[in-house]
């Protein structure tokens, strides 16, 4: 213990830990709220990029405290209270300023000024995170004897913040959250004020000012990019918002305009003058972006004849009066299509509860009580999880049609988004849920150069091979229009009747057949003429013995996605970039998958900013300080700790997301469990202070064992437990995570104790390095998972945990 620490044993408010808990909750809740805000204002991947950098505010506070050094000694309590008092104002002001900045992601390439706005956005948004971290760090400095308890409070608060925010978003719109969180931060400030009248007065005045300002003007709405679908729709002459619902998953806005008409793919063969115009539509905009149409429906299916002129109608020409499961029912187009084609029953699976509220209640007159029909059952559930959880009933048609038409876009923005819907394991599951005569139909948008449908075909071939289908080609059909392709996976091999049904369906509508058993070369590339019959050639190659060679040499990443690397939407290959630039010249930028680029940019900027804003100032400062000799091992230890924790956390969030079937709830449950049990682990570490290096080594060994067991055993457990009830699966997830999180919570306070004993100056250095590594780790984990899979992320995490005791060992030796 440093000579100063004894005098501070009794320092601080008696409610210090409670205040830190509230501040921790505000931190994570504000982060999640901002991701939602910027997903609505811009796009999810750019939201992720912006927030990741803003999070460096966490690390910069360590730098600031480190640079201030001895000058703040004895003033920690004052700085803590000051930070806590500034936080509520910063939350509100920074949110409001961020929504006043006229930033446009899509103008970054053409307008230099947008870079200024982006940097300003980073700076503004990082301030609240800086203050939150400032408060936690000054608490740690204030009570070095209670590092574990403070850390515990921070972790538990963060966990509660995550679950609390997800819950709150079902009742309050996301743009009110900064104001609500300012209220929580005010409470933390009040707790820290103790019995000091001056601080109480300041807190009270601030509360009155914020409340008056909020009541007078109302919460500032989110500034939506002019390039988003909703912004465009609202410019249409007769457009008006007719309903809106917000949940933790999305903001749904229903817009009515005579000009909104969307089709699920190309309808080039539709004889308008003969069969009449499309029915009136209301556009359902998800997060102000993509649109899913809701049709005017009066019970008559006649006006929906146009739905027979898209590729996704193909399954209904193969199976009569089918029992249909529609994954991603949205506004109900595919449900109407199934009914129009004579479906006996439709099970409509929809992830977003807002859809039920909007389509089923707010627009029920317009939508004709579609989801209330006796032959339609709407189930709010994640599609794959629902099918995994029930062996019965079997379906004659499982329809997955153009899901991302209403979520972001089809042009590469999903590259960093995991999707467990399109993996080999998923397709194998869907096929197992088909009746003996049943077919699975998956429709994807097409892009140039061809890739999506090729990857989908490759995934289906691999899925069929895994379940020992001897000749996968006999179970597959691929039909494409101008902009969409539908893949059919048939439970039984295609017979002559079905092959002919595919041929006549395609020919009558001007669609090209990419694959059916017995397809002749002269039959391909007839209506939408490509330079080469790429889809047919790919299908032939993938079904041949040269499939591996085809996958390896293809300019895009068309290797099937798996549950370990669930990135169906990632097609980008670095090695193809030179060829792409040569082929497309200056237009190569049009072909870049922006989701992937945004992720790579996020990692790069996080690394650069961490070096520039955190490590460099700390290194310069520490060179002048008294404890320079400890910097290297502390950096190694806390850098590894930050990376390792985030790697492990993100890998297991992913694993459990699949098991819990629902991304929003999964993140809330998993994050809360992780943080809570890590907090318990840190509390445990606080009580046992002997032989820290040995304890760290044991923790690393136990983590290696537990994660090895999990990597092997969890897929088995998840398969067995996929049919369990929601509470049972949540309980299982918590049970599985608890020991892992407990162990992961031990190293940080243990190491911090060692550092604190060695030299107090190094505590802020450790805090800054850890913060920077955590931010870099969160983004890097996804990049590694895209390229090498989550298993590799876990292995790397273990390796990093092993570095920790080794570096601490150097620190516990007496200084020479």
């Amino acid at each position, binding site marked *: 213990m440093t000579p100063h620490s004894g005098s501070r044993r009794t320092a601080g408010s008696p409610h210090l830990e409670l205040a830190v808990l509230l501040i921790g909750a505000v931190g994570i809740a504000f982060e999640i709220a901002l991701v939602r805000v910027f997903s609505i204002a811009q796009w999810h991947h750019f939201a992720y990029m912006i927030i990741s950098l803003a999070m460096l505010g966490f690390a910069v506070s360590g730098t600031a405290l480190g640079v201030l050094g001895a000058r703040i000694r004895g003033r920690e309590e004052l700085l803590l209270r000051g930070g806590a008092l500034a936080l509520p104002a910063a939350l509100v002001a920074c949110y409001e300023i961020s929504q006043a900045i006229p930033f446009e992601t899509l103008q970054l390439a053409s307008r230099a000024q947008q870079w200024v706005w982006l940097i300003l956005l980073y700076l503004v948004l990082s301030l609240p995170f800086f203050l939150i971290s400032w408060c936690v760090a000054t608490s740690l400095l204030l009570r070095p004897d209670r590092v574990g308890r403070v850390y515990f409070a921070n972790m538990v608060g963060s966990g509660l913040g995550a679950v609390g925010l997800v819950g709150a978003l079902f009742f309050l719109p996301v743009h009110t959250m900064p104001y609500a969180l300012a209220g929580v931060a005010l409470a933390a400030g009040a707790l820290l004020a103790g019995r000091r009248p001056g601080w109480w007065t300041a807190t009270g005045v601030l509360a009155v000012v914020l409340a008056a300002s909020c009541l007078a003007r109302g919460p500032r709405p989110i500034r939506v990019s002019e390039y988003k679908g909703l912004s465009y729709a609202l410019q249409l002459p007769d457009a008006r918002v007719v309903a809106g619902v917000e949940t933790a998953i999305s903001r749904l806005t229903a817009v009515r305009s005579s000009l909104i008409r*969307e089709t699920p793919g*190309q309808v*080039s063969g539709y004889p308008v003058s003969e069969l009449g115009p499309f029915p009136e539509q209301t556009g359902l905009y998800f997060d102000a972006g993509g649109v899913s149409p809701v049709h005017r429906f009066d019970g008559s299916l006649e006006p929906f004849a146009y739905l027979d002129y898209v590729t996704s109608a193909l399954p209904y020409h193969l199976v009569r009066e089918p029992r249909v499961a529609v994954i991603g029912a949205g506004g109900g187009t595919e449900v109407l299509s199934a009914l129009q084609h004579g479906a006996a029953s439709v099970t409509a699976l929809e992830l977003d509860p807002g859809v039920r509220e909007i389509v089923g209640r707010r627009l029920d007159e317009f939508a004709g009580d579609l989801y209330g029909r006796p032959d339609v059952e709407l189930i709010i559930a994640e599609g794959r999880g629902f099918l995994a959880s029930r062996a019965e009933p079997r379906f004659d048609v499982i329809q997955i049609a153009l899901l991302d038409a209403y979520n972001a876009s089809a042009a590469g923005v999903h590259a960093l988004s995991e999707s467990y819907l399109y993996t080999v394991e998923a397709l194998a599951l869907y096929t197992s849920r088909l009746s003996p005569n049943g077919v699975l139909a998956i429709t994807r948008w097409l892009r140039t150069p061809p890739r999506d449908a090729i990857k989908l075909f490759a995934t289906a071939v691999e899925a069929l091979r895994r379940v020992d289908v001897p000749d996968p080609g006999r179970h597959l059909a691929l039909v494409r229009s101008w902009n969409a392709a539908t893949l059919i996976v048939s439970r039984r091999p295609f017979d002559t009747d079905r092959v002919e049904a595919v041929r006549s369906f395609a020919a009558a509508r001007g669609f090209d057949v990419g694959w059916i058993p017995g397809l002749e070369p002269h039959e391909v590339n007839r209506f939408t003429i490509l330079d080469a019959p790429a889809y047919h050639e790919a299908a032939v190659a993938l079904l041949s013995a040269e499939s591996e060679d085809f996958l390896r040499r293809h300019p895009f990443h068309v290797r099937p996605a798996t549950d370990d690397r669930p990135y169906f939407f990632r097609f980008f290959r670095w090695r193809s970039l030179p060829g792409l630039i040569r082929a497309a010249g200056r237009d190569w930028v049009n072909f870049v998958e922006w989701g992937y680029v945004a992720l790579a940019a996020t990692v790069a900027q996080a690394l650069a900013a961490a070096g520039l804003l955190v490590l460099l100032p700390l290194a310069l400062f520490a060179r002048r300080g008294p404890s320079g000799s400890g910097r290297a091992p502390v950096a190694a230890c806390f850098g590894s700790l930050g990376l390792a924790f985030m790697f492990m956390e993100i890998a297991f969030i992913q694993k459990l997301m699949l098991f819990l079937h629902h991304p929003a709830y999964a993140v809330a449950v998993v994050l809360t469990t992780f943080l809570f049990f890590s907090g318990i682990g840190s509390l445990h570490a606080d009580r046992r202070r002997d032989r820290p290096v040995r304890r760290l080594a044991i923790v690393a060994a136990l983590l290696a064992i537990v994660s090895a067991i999990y990597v092997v055993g969890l897929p088995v457990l998840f398969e067995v437990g996929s049919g369990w009830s929601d509470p049972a699966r949540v309980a299982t997830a918590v049970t599985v995570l608890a020991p892992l999180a407990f162990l992961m919570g031990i190293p940080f306070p243990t190491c911090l104790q060692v550092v604190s004993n060695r030299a107090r100056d190094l505590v802020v250095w450790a805090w800054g390095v850890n913060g920077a590594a955590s931010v870099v780790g969160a983004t890097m984990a996804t990049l590694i998972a895209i390229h090498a899979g989550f298993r590799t992320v876990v292995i790397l995490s273990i390796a990093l945990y092993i570095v920790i005791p080794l570096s601490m060992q150097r620190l516990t030796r007496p200084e020479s």
Partner: protein
Amino acid sequence: MRFPYLLVAVAAVAALPALQEADDTREAREAMVREQITARLGGREPVTDAAVLRAMRTVPRHRFVRPADLGHAYADRPLPIGYGQTISQPYIVAAMTEMLDLEPGDRVLEIGTGSGYQAAVLAEIVDSVYTIEVIEPLGRTARDRLVALGYTGVRTRIDDGYFGWPGHDGFDAIVVTAAASHIPPPLVEQLEPGARLVVPVGAPFQVQALMLVEKRRDGSVVQRRMGAVRFVPLTGGP
């Protein structure tokens, strides 16, 4: 007699900046055609149609952009014109016009007037140009601009272009200068036999496939992907 001379001199001095500007922009257009449209850049096919190149050399593109973008008017890129819309990059305008394979007597329909630039280019080649814009302020500004620049024969309309030009029998060429999520079937129906339709198909604000639709003499329809572009969306349907 001194007064008239003085007047002429004053007028000449006053006109100097305009003449200077005309020279500058003519040079800029020449450079645009030389460096962007007829050059083999990256994967682009050079545009060779003499009528199209003449039109691109003639139409004052800088009069169709916002004042803030004057400096980039002839740059090889699209520029924002407000309401989430853009004026397409010069090469795309030229390439799409060339794809239409126009004859002077053709009737051409443009969907998505935007700034009015494409309509002006078409009007330099054919006698009969119809153009429709759905966003009223854009449509009004474009109409005034076209009239001011002397393109009085271009017929403008503020309406949903999805249905084509109401009451018109058929067109020899249709060009859609806004992204469509699908080929509007009414436009295919408004094509005369042997006519062509050029349309970018794809998600709004993302990379779209530039499609060339040809209605054969026998009424059958064939499509080709002609490249990838980025256009702002066209909204509408039957």
